[in-house]
């Protein structure tokens, strides 16, 4: 009788799952069983090998693939998430801790034959070509063999065609030229690719086309075909007819045929030979039921038809004799076609899975080009109510609310307060008081409820008096709530006679990814303390669907937050990750405001590249005129640069959009403070207190202003009030500085001691604050030493020193000017 762990392991082999052999061997009692486990490990490899050869998905289609790395580290590479799962192993996105860069790591699980892996590494390394994925290294560590290579960001051609429809012939030919060049290189190295298909060609956001083969018979779901055949096999539709005959072997000609199928697919989204099973495909080949491209898609240039039909000739000897010959033919087609960007902003926007799933797509795109309408409407979206009776669905309601807000916010002619404004009004019903508080003309309220297995989404729009303007409802399965939202918003936009385009966004996003994304959004807007949880949810979402641009943008924004904390385990790593994620978001969706806001934040806080930051933040504001967040950050950038009037104007507009959010007023107050206009600064800080009594940020701001005016006692009292609201070490260190300015040396000591105790518990503040204390005490040399040190660490909190009154005692020293010059902050 076999031991339970052995049977379980065997079942996992049969399911095609990854197995932790170490723990299985540990759990076995007899030496015999341990030896059997070793043999099972070998069987697992053989099974994986067969799956690889069959290109057949292991397990039942509904078996979810593992989405988190099953190990955290491999040598000097830190595993971040699973990109694809091949039969021989798994492909991860990983962080190279030595060279500090992101890489793709293919790990061959189990006790693989290391020499075979090294051989694959050497083989791949022979192909150094712009359009072939670049191998960095190969090694065997802890008994696991792996190859790491360049991480290619982008979307597979499959994903692009499924998402946004077939390409124009000139575009397809242009992509084809690059694939042909890659294939020429592969053949020149004496190799065959054997798996040329749309899933294996990735187009990066920069436009670079990369041919890859992760040897992944089983890729993450986002790369999988949605149709039936994929559950059996993905590749056979690309297989040349001669390969369906017994004893056939692959050749250059069969690679050329696959390439021809790829070209066919790019312009039609279809295949010349269809079949749900291998048998059907074989019979279709035999019967010659081949749909020529000419019939499948009419009106293409005849040269394109010619290239495809020559590549797809049944007789291998009549096909192109080399990929290079095909390149020449394709280049001619590409040159004759109308040249336009292959993936224009608009199309890329429509194609991105998340954006497609979002609302009023066409409308937003149009608003980018359209001039601002004088008749700006204001609508507040009240938090959707969760009437499902299931409290665990609350995130769906909150997530959808945020989706609705952020999409309406992208319409130029509409002003929409953010979740921060409406969040406190949960469970409120539309009323004139609510409309006044939010400063809007119209209120949109809605709910989700359960209707059998489905979710009903109902919304109604009222004017400020509570009279119904419009109402609608849609019932969908939970997986379809995003599209339901989409429908509703389009109808709403129509009701408001906003110009809605005719394009219907496609729903490329996978349902579980959408669900994780909604959960992430709900956590993101819920509290500053749920950001790590939000990051986990967004991470899950992008693992399931790497096309979710907005999820990448939020991940980047959260990572930036972590990168710029006073104490962070690896600041540079977080900064690089955040930048990579922001660039990815923008690459996927150039018109998504959050990606630009995230990139702008990194350029401002981490890179200190103020011109680039301004460009990114301005773009974010242009794309989403209602987005208070980007506006606020942009205002603070302008303050740091001493461009006070512009900063004040931006912050004032953010306040106008969201009068009910205290932080908007304190940001405006801070802009006045840096401009030296203390009376207006006080006025705005007090406005923040009127909105949110005892608002800590307001008290802190009032304390700094009082200190700048030499009103020390009041300054101390205000900062103590702020500290009563939050145990913020950044505020406590400012209290020490205010004491220093007041000449209360003993209190400075006492406060610094308290900070010291806190610091040992991990709660700390940034070093530049000590420079401000030294400045207040007249220890000028010390202040400069501390500022130098802060500068070497690029602490974001010192970015405002050009305008910060706390460094006034240092301004006449030439060292200060020199520092500003090095920070590129000199006027």
């Amino acid at each position, binding site marked *: 009788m076999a031991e339970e762990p052995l049977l379980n392991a065997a*079942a996992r082999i049969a399911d095609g799952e990854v197995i932790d052999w170490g723990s299985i061997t540990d759990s076995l009692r007899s030496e015999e069983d341990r030896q059997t486990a070793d043999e*099972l490990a070998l*069987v697992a490899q053989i099974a994986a090998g067969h799956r690889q050869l*069959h*290109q057949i998905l292991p397990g039942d289609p509904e078996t979810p693939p593992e989405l988190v790395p099953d190990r955290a580290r491999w040598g000097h590479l830190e595993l971040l998430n699973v990109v694809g799962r091949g039969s021989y192993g798994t492909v991860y996105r990983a962080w190279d801790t030595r060279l500090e860069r992101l890489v793709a790591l293919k790990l061959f699980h189990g006790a693989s*034959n290391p020499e075979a892996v090294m051989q694959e590494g050497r083989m791949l390394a022979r192909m150094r070509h712009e359009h072939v994925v670049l191998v960095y290294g190969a090694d065997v560590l802890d008994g696991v063999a792996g190859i790491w290579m360049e991480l290619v960001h982008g979307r597979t051609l499959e994903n692009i065609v499924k998402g946004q429809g077939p390409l124009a012939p000139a575009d397809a030919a242009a992509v084809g030229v690059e694939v042909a060049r890659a294939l020429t290189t592969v053949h020149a190295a004496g190799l065959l690719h054997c798996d040329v298909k749309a899933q294996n060609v990735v187009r990066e956001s920069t436009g670079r086309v990369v041919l890859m083969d992760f040897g992944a018979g089983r890729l993450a779901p986002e790369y999988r075909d949605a149709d039936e055949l994929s559950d059996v096999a993905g590749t056979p539709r690309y297989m040349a007819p001669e390969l*369906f005959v017994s*004893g056939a072997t692959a050749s250059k000609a069969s690679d050329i045929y696959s390439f021809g199928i790829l070209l066919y697919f790019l312009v039609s989204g279809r295949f010349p030979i269809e079949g749900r099973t291998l048998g059907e495909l*074989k019979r279709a080949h035999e019967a010659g039921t081949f749909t020529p491209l000419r019939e499948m898609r009419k009106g293409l240039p005849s040269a394109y038809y010619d290239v495809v039909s020559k590549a797809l000739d049944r007789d291998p000897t009549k096909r192109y004799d080399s990929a290079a010959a095909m390149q020449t033919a394709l280049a001619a087609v590409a040159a004759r076609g109308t040249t336009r960007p292959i993936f224009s902003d608009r199309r890329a926007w429509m194609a991105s899975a998340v954006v497609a799933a979002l609302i009023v797509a066409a409308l937003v795109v149009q608003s980018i080009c359209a001039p601002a309408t004088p008749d700006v409407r204001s609508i507040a979206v009240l938090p959707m109510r969760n009437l499902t009776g299931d409290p665990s669905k609350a995130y769906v309601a909150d997530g959808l609310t945020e989706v609705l807000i952020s999409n309406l916010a992208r319409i130029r002619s509409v002003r929409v307060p953010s979740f921060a404004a409406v969040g406190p009004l949960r469970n409120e019903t539309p009323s004139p008081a609510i409309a006044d508080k939010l400063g809007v003309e119209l209120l949109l309220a809605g709910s989700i409820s359960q209707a059998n297995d489905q979710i009903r989404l109902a919304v109604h729009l009222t004017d400020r008096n509570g009279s119904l303007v419009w109402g609608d409802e849609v019932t969908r399965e939970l997986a379809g709530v995003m599209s339901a939202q989409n429908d509703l918003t389009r109808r709403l936009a129509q009701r408001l006679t906003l110009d809605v385009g005719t394009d219907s966004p496609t729903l490329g996003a996978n349902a579980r990814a959408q669900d994780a994304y909604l959960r992430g959004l709900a956590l993101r807007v819920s509290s500053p303390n749920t950001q790590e949880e939000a990051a986990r949810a967004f991470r899950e979402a992008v693992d399931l669907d790497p096309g979710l641009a907005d999820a990448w943008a939020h991940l980047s924004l959260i990572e930036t937050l972590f990168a710029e904390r006073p104490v962070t385990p690896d600041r540079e790593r977080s900064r690089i990750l955040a930048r990579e994620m922001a660039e990815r978001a923008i690459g996927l969706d150039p018109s998504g405001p959050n990606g630009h806001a995230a990139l702008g934040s990194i350029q401002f806080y981490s890179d200190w590249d103020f011109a680039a930051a301004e460009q990114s933040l301005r773009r974010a504001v242009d794309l989403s005129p209602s987005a208070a967040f980007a506006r606020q950050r942009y205002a603070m950038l302008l303050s740091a640069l001493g461009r006070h009037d512009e900063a004040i104007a931006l912050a004032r507009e953010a306040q106008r959009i969201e009068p009910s959010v205290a932080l908007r007023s304190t940001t405006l107050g801070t802009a006045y403070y840096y401009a030296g206009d203390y009376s207006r600064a006080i006025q705005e800080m007090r406005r923040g207190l009127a909105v949110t009594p005892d608002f800590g940020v307001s008290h802190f701001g009032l304390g700094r202003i009082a200190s700048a005016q030499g009103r020390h006692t009041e300054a101390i009292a205000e900062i103590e009030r702020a500290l009563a609201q939050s145990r913020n070490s950044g505020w406590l260190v400012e209290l020490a500085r205010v004491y220093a300015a007041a000449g209360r040396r003993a209190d400075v000591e006492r406060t610094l001691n308290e900070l010291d105790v806190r610091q040992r518990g991990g709660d700390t503040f940034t070093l530049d604050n000590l420079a401000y204390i030294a400045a207040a005490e007249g220890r000028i040399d010390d202040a400069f030493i501390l500022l130098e040190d802060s500068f070497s660490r690029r602490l974001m909190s010192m970015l405002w020193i050009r305008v910060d009154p706390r460094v006034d005692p240092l301004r006449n020293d030439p060292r200060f000017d020199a520092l500003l010059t090095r920070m590129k902050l000199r006027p």
Partner: protein
Amino acid sequence: MQDTLIRTVANLGHFEARGEGALQAYLRGALMNRIRDEIRRKRRTPDLGALDATIPAQGRSPLEAAIGAESLAKYDRALERLDDEAREAVIARIEMGCSYAEVAELMGKPSADAARMAVSRALVKLAQEMRRG
């Protein structure tokens, strides 16, 4: 081993569908034939285990390249020693990539779950045989 896939298709031969029942019966027969072909083929294949496992990769199948001819030979020998049902279960699921529903259909098991169990048990038996060499 790429041949397996190609032969799978080639062996399906001509078939005229006469309703769903007939198709199912045909597919079951075809699958069974594929499996038995595979078994016959294995018997014809010379035992590579006896050769030096470090021979150049030339002429080796991708599976051998990845796993090693010696290991593959050990696997084949053990498979040969299994009873018919266990051998067919392994070949159908592991080598042919049949779904559990297909395996159940082939082996006359009442459900996909039962087929999964049968495959798992067969794999353990196989490993035990491999341990013996």
